[in-house]
């Protein structure tokens, strides 16, 4: 959920700024500097972040914080996407608050610093995609806040310019501000997409109008700066706080929708255990829905057992089955509800191992396969070879006792090559065609709609966190 403060409402449509930025960087790549309006030239300082690396000094204490977190990620001490997401957001918040910002191009410096940390974090445990998601979200927040701040100031400028030069029509900027307010206040959806058409033209008009005010800009710039630098940081931190809040409450948001999906006397099947699923089922129970739950135990971790315990404690009729009995039971099931590790841009799901099998069984019997996913699980990347690259092989000791099989692993006898191999993948990839519905904290979505959600939450510039060497 995006939420904007009133002070920014008189800004421009951010889509316009994104475009002008893209235009600018394209021009720079080609080595030509188009005769851009002055205000854009001024803005370009904000975006040419690359040269300002030396300014982005991380304070020593954040350095230890980052290292500590990195270590934990590397050693697989932090697991579970929600916990990781929350910790990442908190870490980034403290990094932002302690980051010393230069006088010019603050957003660029901030983005650079976050990207540098984000790169380390994502390589520390590439499988835990929630880390990358949150880093991208925070980057997106910085970009947005920056844009809204600049538009606010420019909005002010343009008004100022109008008083000097009375040729322009004040109605145009007022319309733009109104449109911006509309787009930012409302959650993005297909309808808003259509409505956006009008503010766009308005924004272009405004762009022309503000260009004429370029001369007066230099005077106001210096006075603006201090307040703006504090404002940017303040705004970003505030929005990151909201993000943390969102992550913390995503369970509740999702669970609120439970009554719409679970009906009387239904049979729900789930596999393994997921905090979101527990909340979801219990929310339906609290609303006096009576239904039964089949829990597949979820080998090799058998978290299904704890889930069953939990559900029974809350008074739900629960049946525990083995993973291999899923197909036998699925014909009696009305809906499959499961959690996810990550949701990819194509609507594919990285989920605990065994779920692909459940999804296939569900498809065969035309049972809806519903995936609950907090918005922090949305990953803007497309999966490539997800069975291998987005998977983690855990210790085989979860499956077997080493001691019992130690004689099978005596490499001194035979050819010397291990005859016994135990594979314990942590995740399954469920392709989007097997998923019927995603329930996120913003509502239910079709797998094919995921890319749209992603476009709202992430900037295209941040998809690749790895920074190429600038030299």
């Amino acid at each position: 959920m995006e939420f904007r403060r009133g002070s920014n409402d008189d800004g421009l449509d951010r889509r316009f700024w994104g475009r002008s930025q893209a235009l600018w960087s394209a021009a720079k790549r080609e080595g030509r500097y188009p005769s851009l309006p002055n205000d854009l030239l001024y803005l370009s300082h904000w975006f040419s972040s690359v040269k300002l690396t030396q300014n982005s000094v991380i304070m020593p204490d954040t350095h230890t914080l980052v290292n500590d977190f990195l270590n934990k990620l590397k050693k697989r001490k932090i697991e579970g996407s929600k916990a990781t997401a929350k910790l990442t957001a908190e870490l980034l918040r403290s990094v932002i608050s302690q980051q010393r910002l230069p006088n010019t191009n603050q957003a660029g410096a901030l983005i650079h610093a976050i990207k540098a940390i984000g790169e380390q974090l994502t390589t520390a445990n590439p499988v835990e995609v929630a880390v990358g998601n949150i880093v991208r979200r925070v980057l997106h927040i910085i970009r947005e806040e920056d844009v809204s701040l600049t538009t606010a100031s420019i909005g002010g400028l343009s008004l100022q310019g109008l008083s000097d030069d009375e040729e322009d029509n004040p109605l145009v900027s007022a319309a733009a501000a109104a449109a911006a307010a509309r787009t930012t206040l409302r959650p993005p959806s297909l309808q808003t997409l259509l409505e956006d058409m009008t503010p766009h033209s308005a924004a272009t008009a405004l762009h022309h109008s503000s260009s004429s005010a370029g001369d007066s800009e230099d005077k106001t710039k210096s006075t603006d700066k201090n307040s703006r630098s504090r404002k940017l940081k303040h705004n970003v931190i505030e929005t990151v706080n909201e993000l943390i809040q969102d992550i913390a409450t995503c369970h509740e948001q999702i669970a609120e929708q439970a009554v719409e999906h679970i009906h009387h006397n239904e049979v729900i099947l789930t596999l393994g255990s997921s905090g979101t699923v527990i909340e979801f089922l219990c929310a339906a129970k609290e609303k006096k829905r009576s239904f039964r739950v089949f829990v597949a135990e979820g080998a090799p971790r058998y978290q299904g057992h704890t889930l069953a315990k939990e559900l029974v404690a809350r008074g739900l009729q629960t049946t525990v089955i083995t993973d291999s009995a899923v197909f036998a039971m699925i014909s009696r099931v009305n809906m499959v509800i499961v959690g996810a590790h990550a949701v990819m841009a194509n609507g594919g799901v990285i989920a605990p191992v065994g779920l692909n099998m459940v999804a296939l069984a569900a498809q065969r019997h035309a049972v809806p396969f519903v995936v609950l996913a907090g918005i922090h699980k949305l990953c803007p990347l497309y999966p490539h070879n997800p069975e291998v690259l987005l998977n983690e092989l855990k210790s085989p000791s979860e499956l077997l006792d080493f001691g019992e099989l130690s004689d099978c692993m005596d490499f001194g006898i035979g050819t010397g090559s291990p005859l016994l191999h135990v594979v314990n993948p942590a995740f399954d990839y469920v392709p989007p065609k097997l998923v019927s519905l995603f329930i996120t904290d913003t509502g239910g979505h079709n797998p094919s709609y995921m890319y749209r959600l992603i476009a709202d939450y992430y900037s295209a510039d941040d998809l690749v966190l790895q920074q190429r060497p600038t030299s």
Partner: protein
Amino acid sequence: MGAKKGGKQEDAVEDMPHVPLKAILLADSFNTNFRPITLERPKVLLPLVNTPMIDYTLAWLESAEVDEVFIFCCSHSKQIIDYLDKSKWVNQPNFSVTTIESYNCIGAGDALRLIYERNVINGDFILISGDTVSNMVLKQALDEHKERRQKDKNAVMTMVIKQSKPSQITRQTRLGTVELFMAIDPATKQLLYYKAKSDNQGNLTLDKAFLAENPSISLHNDKQDCYIDICSEEVLSLFTDNFDYQHLRHFVKGLLGDDVMGYKIFTHEIHSDYAARIDNFRSYGSISKDIIQRWTYPFVPDVQFSMSNSANLERHGIYMASEISLSYSSKIGRFTYIGKGSSIGGGTVISNSVIGEGCKIGSNVLIDGCYIWNNVTIENGCELKHAILCDGVVMKSESVLEPGVVLSFNVVVGQGFEVPAYSKVSLLPQPVKQDSDEELEYADNNSGIIPVTNTLENGNSSSELEPSDVGIGGRGFIWSISEVGHEEWRHSVAPIPESKLIELTQTVFDNLEINIQDDNVFPIADEQESGNESDDENRDEDQIFEKEIEATFLRGVQENVKEDHIILEVNSLRLSYNMALENCASALFYSMLKLALDTPHNSPANLVDNTNDVISRWGKLLKPYIQSIDDEIEVILKFEEMCLENGSEFAPVFVLILHLLYDKDIIQEEAIHKWADEKEGADESDKVFVKQSEVFIQWLNEASEEED
């Protein structure tokens, strides 16, 4: 008193969280198993799946929330300290690494004494050597240790063990170490007995008193010692008090053998966690494979737990680091690790191997089960099986390594040369004089670094002049393996050759047969008395004693020696074997019956006649040894036993011979009665002979009544 103590200990518990957990890491194994490699580089810095061993140990200690580690360096200490200075371990928050250097330690004992003098350890600490790979969760073991310490101040040490079955054939574990026997109290987990068997026999000897003292023990030969010990500070002072403790396990044996101080050692068995120590080349290979198979998760190559470059895990357990150049036609088999910047030529087949960084492997090379370290060059057409190649080794084209070869640093194998199996090749000549291992290590410390440069220069200048051991254009000395020739296959990375296995299987069977025969020939004399079958030592002695008596008796019969002389000899035997009179009686009686049995006979009646002859001739011999009723009963029991086991021909004539013994006044009526009474409560199967002699006993009864 007790209450007071309790109060104090509670305070101690409250203080616990403030006491930082310390660990002593011995960065020296104090043995020569990794020669010749360890002449040039300390064992703990040898790469294990492209990461130095010490990194695994340190990473584990860090994850186990140890606060302070004292690394004890001895040989090549400078290399270790240099490495640590460059590594990430030195500047970690919440994890301090301190090195302690020494030049004149010859064993772990010395090391611990030195650490004790430094006075850096207070409270519990973890003792580990720098070649241990583990991912165990320490907390539980630590808590158990602390809890025990509170109850019993003498519980000074907790030893971590893990189930691991030894091979039935080779009697060694998968880590190449000898089979380990442990006796553990199943209730308290106290370690009562610890013995590493070096011989090939499956026998184990326990003290009778030991069994008497411990009502319940469980004996294990399927436990592996992980060499992770949680010790209390007393351990250090104990080492200081006892100068003869040199190895860590000397100390364990010392404590177990010493009843005076009453110190106790406990065990903690881990199940799902992994822990193992690299002791020799075989364990190096086994543990490398375990790492590749991810038993050591999260300390696996695709997780960055140390400084080394991480690799990506692909299907079939293949780990690939970055910047690898693979030829189109090369085949990378399962469970292989390929390090950063290595290149592999066309037609090359690699399986079950680890290839380090910057290696250049030509085309049509066959590599199976090899451990290739960094910057190794292998030219076209080479063939390598189960070998270890250290940094900078060059193999010229078409050369071959037989299984079990170890090529130390910078060795060059000449073109087309075939290195024989199990050879160890080094640029350094083999140390000539080897009086004892300890001296060897000592010499190594002093001169470990100097000869490296010397011989390298020599090698450079004289490689054209003197023919090298490893072919034309090669450099290196093949070390002779005469000293422990037969042990080579045990400790090599190569699997044990088929022929060797067959041979070993044969000996195992032979041993079994011998044991079975032994049991037949020498029935256990005093089973009831010793009351325990595992009381092997006594049984062995009994058997030897019986054999001696029999030999003496037979010689006496053949040479017609005077009875007095035989008695004299038997007496001396009795004293030297520390046997009771009844043992002599039963042994002599047994010999007599055996003689009768061996005399040709064609019917049971004939056998009785034979026995009659023998007993009338030599019966007097028994007189001095049969002084009480108990001795007589012993003789009857012996006879009974014999009938059951190998002298079954006597079984039908049991009563007749019993009568004979009665007639000859060797056994009195009373003894027979008592014997019958004793057997009253026995099993049905044991009563066979009592029943047989029922009539005889009745007759005896009647006779005595008549006399009255």
